[in-house]
């Protein structure tokens, strides 16, 4: 079986060596053992601190999983991977199985341990890469901005606006230091008037682009996607598979019902938080084309791109954003959010991974069918 990596995934066939599912909203309410057989639990030491626990899930789900699955914690002790030196190239560890599906919760287990702002994204992504995965799938609770949405619906964002301001959005040391020293204003004066308008509102996008441009020079990133092309960090093929799992016929016209006006793709705006947005901020985001708002996806998508991991996110509408609650006043942050996210993404992950060579060949045939 010839595996494809990095950017090739987009054009090539979707049979991946490994997929990681990052659980977002309400992930702390669920136990992965209720959804699949947990065969391994692992905490990875990274240069950015220990990762959260990663669970390797068996693809074959039993009819009544709860009754058959032993407690994962008693099954295997925590084992650590050798952590590479931060400045060394990422080692590609031997993947234990042809295809593995990993799961980790971003915000902690059992309770909300870390607000979105404080998720250690670098450790999460580094660990995912060290575990040999090629694609990141995640679910996120989002607030709806687009009035066509309803609480409980799902969207798969196709574009992102980064309004975060404090987060480390690169593995690249120099870029991080620059950001920490606050050298943003100097750049601005060099750019002059017209550019400063763009920075005034697109400042975060522009800064992200500059960071990624700098990051491109780093050795370990050369193997990843070219950061200059990360204008859209979402993997179109993965989006396609998510929509097909959701049984939404995949074509541009079929999900424009979620779009503002004639916009073709859902847009996610990532705010800094942890405070929620004001009505004026939501109005501005809507004016700029955002459909949903959250606090989680940045810098995860940028970091994944730097490491050459394909990325797709399933956004579950948990509520309406500030100032728009009259459209649908319901709020849903309960376990059902995580259950839906986990079930959909597990199905997606199963579609994207293969258990053996025969399975891979079969999937390739299927994929050809989907594409055409």
């Amino acid at each position, binding site marked *: 079986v010839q595996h494809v990596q990095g950017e090739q995934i987009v054009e090539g066939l979707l049979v991946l060596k490994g997929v990681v599912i990052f659980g977002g909203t309400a992930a702390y309410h669920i136990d992965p053992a209720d959804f699949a057989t947990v065969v391994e639990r692992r905490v990875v030491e990274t240069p950015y601190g220990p990762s959260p626990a990663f669970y390797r899930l068996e693809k074959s789900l039993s009819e009544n999983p709860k009754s058959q699955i032993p407690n994962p914690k008693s099954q295997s002790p925590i084992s650590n991977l050798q952590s590479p030196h931060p400045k060394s190239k990422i080692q590609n560890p031997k993947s234990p199985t042809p295809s593995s599906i990993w799961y980790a919760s971003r915000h902690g287990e059992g309770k909300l341990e870390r*607000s979105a702002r404080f998720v250690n994204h670098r450790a999460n992504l580094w660990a995912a890469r060290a575990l040999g995965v090629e694609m990141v799938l995640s679910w996120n609770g989002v607030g709806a901005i687009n009035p066509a949405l309803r609480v409980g619906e799902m969207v798969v964002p196709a574009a992102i606006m980064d309004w975060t301001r404090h987060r480390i959005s690169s593995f690249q040391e120099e870029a991080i230091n620059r950001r920490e020293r606050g050298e943003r*204003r100097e750049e601005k004066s060099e750019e002059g008037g017209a550019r*400063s308008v763009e920075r005034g509102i697109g400042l975060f996008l522009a800064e992200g682009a500059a960071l990624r441009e700098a990051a491109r020079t780093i050795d370990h990133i050369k193997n990843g996607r070219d950061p200059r092309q990360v204008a859209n960090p979402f993997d179109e093929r993965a989006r396609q598979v998510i929509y097909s799992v959701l049984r939404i016929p995949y074509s541009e016209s079929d999900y424009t019902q979620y779009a503002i006006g004639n916009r073709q793709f859902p847009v996610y705006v990532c705010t800094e938080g942890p405070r*929620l947005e*004001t009505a004026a901020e939501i109005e501005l985001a809507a004016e700029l084309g955002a459909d949903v708002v959250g606090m989680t996806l940045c810098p995860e998508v940028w970091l994944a791109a730097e490491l050459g991991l394909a990325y797709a996110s399933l956004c579950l509408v948990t509520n309406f954003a500030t100032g728009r609650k009259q459209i649908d006043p319901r709020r849903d942050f309960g376990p059902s959010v995580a259950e839906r996210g986990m079930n959909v993404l597990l199905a997606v992950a199963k579609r994207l991974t293969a258990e053996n060579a025969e399975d891979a060949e079969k999937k390739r045939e299927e994929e050809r069918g989907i594409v055409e």
Partner: protein
Amino acid sequence: MTLAIIETGKSQIQNPKSQRVDTPFGMVDYEQVAINGSEVCWLDRHPLKSQIPNPKFQSPKPKAQILSPVDSRAVAMAARLLGAEQVIGVVRDAGVERPVVPADFIEFSSGRPTTFFETMGAGYVQQEPPFCPEMSQALRAAGAETGRTLLVLDELPEAAERAWWNGRGVSLITPESQPEGALCRELELCYAVLVVPAGMQIAPLLATVVAHLPVERQCGCGTAVGGKWKLLLGSDVTH
């Protein structure tokens, strides 16, 4: 119920008796004054760097994140420690000719700590309404205009950037008042912004405001985080 005023620079109250309050995020200068018979704490927005952390706080140590010119956590915490429950953030130099109470705000500041809470989800404070309605009402009763949106940037914008915002109907622009306001809400303090012309004496206006402040809070500010801010303090802090 004590009122706190947060203002940049020296207070304009005569005969000042400057004091200091220590917080884990820096020392804050303040003056205790009486306005219209009420005790008012007049705090300086910019904290002094505290060399020795106050041991009675159990809060997680401040994260070494991005170097911050202003740590608004200091002044918000100082207001709370001084026993205030109502806070007015005074903003000057925003290009107004008369006092204004903004109806909403947009924040694009960076490099400023925005929360006390890393865990528990307590930092997810609602911004609906964006400012305490009772405080805003008292400020309106004292003659301040309302209805405009306040934009908070790192610094005052350049001409082109200002024009971009003005084109969207945003003309009140300041580097101040956020995330101070959101932090006050995390401590369950009532917070409202008063935008005044540079150099205006605000003590007479505040005298009217004090007369209109509610004695008992009916707004939702007092329950914004379900009392979780108390976990930030040691048990010997009674406020």
